[in-house]
């Protein structure tokens, strides 16, 4: 066992009938890090979280939380963790205050301490003024904040977040990301599952990419990007567009693939300077005016697409279900 690890999974496996949802995965999460668990829908992210938190029992393998086996020493393991599932599983018939204090009771927190903690958290999440309202009157973002607050009532040192920002408006997303960042700076270890590239890239110290129940890679976001050679690209836009441009660009030297993304073209290459020169010559020859030129390094999305094998039809624009931007390394706009 690893001394610095607060979460350790070994050969964790889950079968639903004959279908293997999680296939002998092993990983370690160190104290104080934000560990991202990135994968497409149905990859096995939620199933993994459910096994790590004791909600579901694994078919094979084991997991420990701060050295406590989640099956054999489940009480000790569960005492130090908080869970925010993919849907806000709050009691909508109860108020925010009652939800938090009830959670405190489940964790054996004394009355005085759980009331103090409920007040602290509701103030931190800007919900204290509406603490006595039933949650059925709350917005989705507010329910999400209550759900996160409930996971912190027991002063957990490990927080499992399953798609914490899915389906929320931009303001709620920003608020929740800032809160997670602050909690992590205060020492909380975060296990974050997401299919949002930007979220994973911005927030996580390390990322595991899971697909079809297997871990395809584990590393820091930047190292993952560097391992993916040949995914550099040049992003260009012309003032005027016509149908032949795409075919012409494909024919340029050093261009391996062309994707149309809105009003822009993304030219994949392993030699950006050569492509830049060729694009410049092409524009000049055709009398086209370049309005955007960027060289883009491989993005986490590119790494993800390469490792998971998810591909859309060429030139179909943004990839389905994936968000985020490449790493801009230079250009004009």
């Amino acid at each position, binding site marked *: 066992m690893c001394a610095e690890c607060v979460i350790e999974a070994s050969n964790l496996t889950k079968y*639903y009938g004959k279908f293997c949802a999680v296939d002998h995965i092993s990983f370690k999460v160190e104290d104080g890090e934000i560990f991202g668990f990135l994968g497409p829908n149905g990859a096995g992210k939620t199933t993994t979280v*459910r096994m790590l*938190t*004791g*909600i*579901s*029992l694994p*078919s094979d393998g084991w997991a420990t939380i701060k050295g406590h086996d989640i099956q054999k020493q*489940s*009480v*000790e393991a*569960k*005492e130090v*963790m908080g*869970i925010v*599932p993919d*849907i806000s*599983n*709050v*009691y909508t*018939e*109860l108020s925010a205050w*009652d939800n938090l204090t*009830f*959670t405190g*009771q*489940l*964790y*054996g927190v004394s009355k005085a301490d759980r009331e103090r903690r409920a007040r602290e958290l509701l103030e931190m999440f800007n919900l204290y003024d509406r603490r006595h309202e039933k949650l059925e009157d709350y917005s989705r973002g507010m329910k999400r904040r209550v759900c996160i607050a409930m996971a912190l009532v027991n002063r957990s040192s490990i927080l499992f977040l399953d798609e914490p920002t899915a389906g929320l408006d931009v303001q709620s997303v920003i608020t929740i990301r800032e809160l997670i960042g602050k909690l992590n700076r205060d020492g909380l270890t975060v296990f974050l599952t997401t299919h949002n590239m930007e979220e994973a890239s911005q927030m996580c110290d390390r990322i595991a990419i899971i697909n079809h129940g297997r871990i395809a890679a584990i590393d820091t976001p930047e190292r993952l990007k560097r391992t993916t050679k040949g995914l550099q690209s040049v992003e260009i836009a012309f003032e005027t567009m016509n149908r032949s441009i795409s075919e012409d660009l494909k024919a340029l030297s050093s261009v391996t693939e062309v994707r149309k993304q809105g009003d822009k073209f993304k030219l994949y290459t392993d030699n950006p300077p050569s492509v830049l020169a060729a694009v410049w010559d092409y524009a000049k020859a055709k009398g086209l005016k370049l309005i955007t030129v960027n060289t883009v390094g491989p993005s986490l999305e590119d790494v993800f697409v390469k490792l998971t094998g998810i591909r859309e039809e060429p030139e179909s624009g943004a990839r389905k279900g994936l968000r985020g931007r490449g790493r801009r390394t230079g250009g004009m706009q």
Partner: protein
Amino acid sequence: MRRKQIVRELKVAWAIATKDMKIYYLKTPSLMFGILFPFAMFLSFVVGRDMPISRAIPVLVAQTVFFAASSIGPVSIPIERRLQTFDRFLSAPVSLLTVLLGKTIAGFVYGVGISFIPVAIGLAIFGSQITDLVALTMGMGLSAFGFAAMGIMFASLPGQGPGQVLMPLNFVRIPLLFISGVYVAVKDLPSWGQVASAASPLTHTIELIRLGLGGENFFGPAINMAVLTFYLIAFLIAGMRFHIINQKRD
């Protein structure tokens, strides 16, 4: 240390029970299958029959305990499973037994609370008398616990709504009424019926309640209590086993 842990688990069970009381006691399926249903069935069998009300009161009390106590688990657990609030218990640092005990207590309080109404009406209006307080208390209390545990056991059936649990539960609850000496006294049943009634927990509920309110008892209170205790333990153990199977399957 062990004592401290037990006290903590009991506090958590009570917290779960009080939370369920707040949320589920007034839900439509609880009122429908826990209160309306036994009262309606009672009236349909009693109205027009030449039976003094004071003799019918134990039947109503037993039916109310039976239906009310066994309805709360099948209402709360499927709803919580659908909304994933049941996962909160599975990820909390408490045993599954504590969670199910909390749910059972919620059913117990509902069953005892509702069945106390016909007892009070019988005493106040129809001249019923308590002749054996222990038998009546055990008949209501022990039965309410057992039937609440039976509801919890049925609630482990896969399903995302109370209807998916209450319907199969009614397939068991309604036939039990006819073999348990509720409408026909056990002594008047054929011999095969008496054997079947001995195996039904509801028989022992009605026997104890009848004894408590001045009526006859066929099997004897000791056997009644022993059988009810056996069923309480059996339902709790079976409920736990089924919930663990669900955890493995989910």
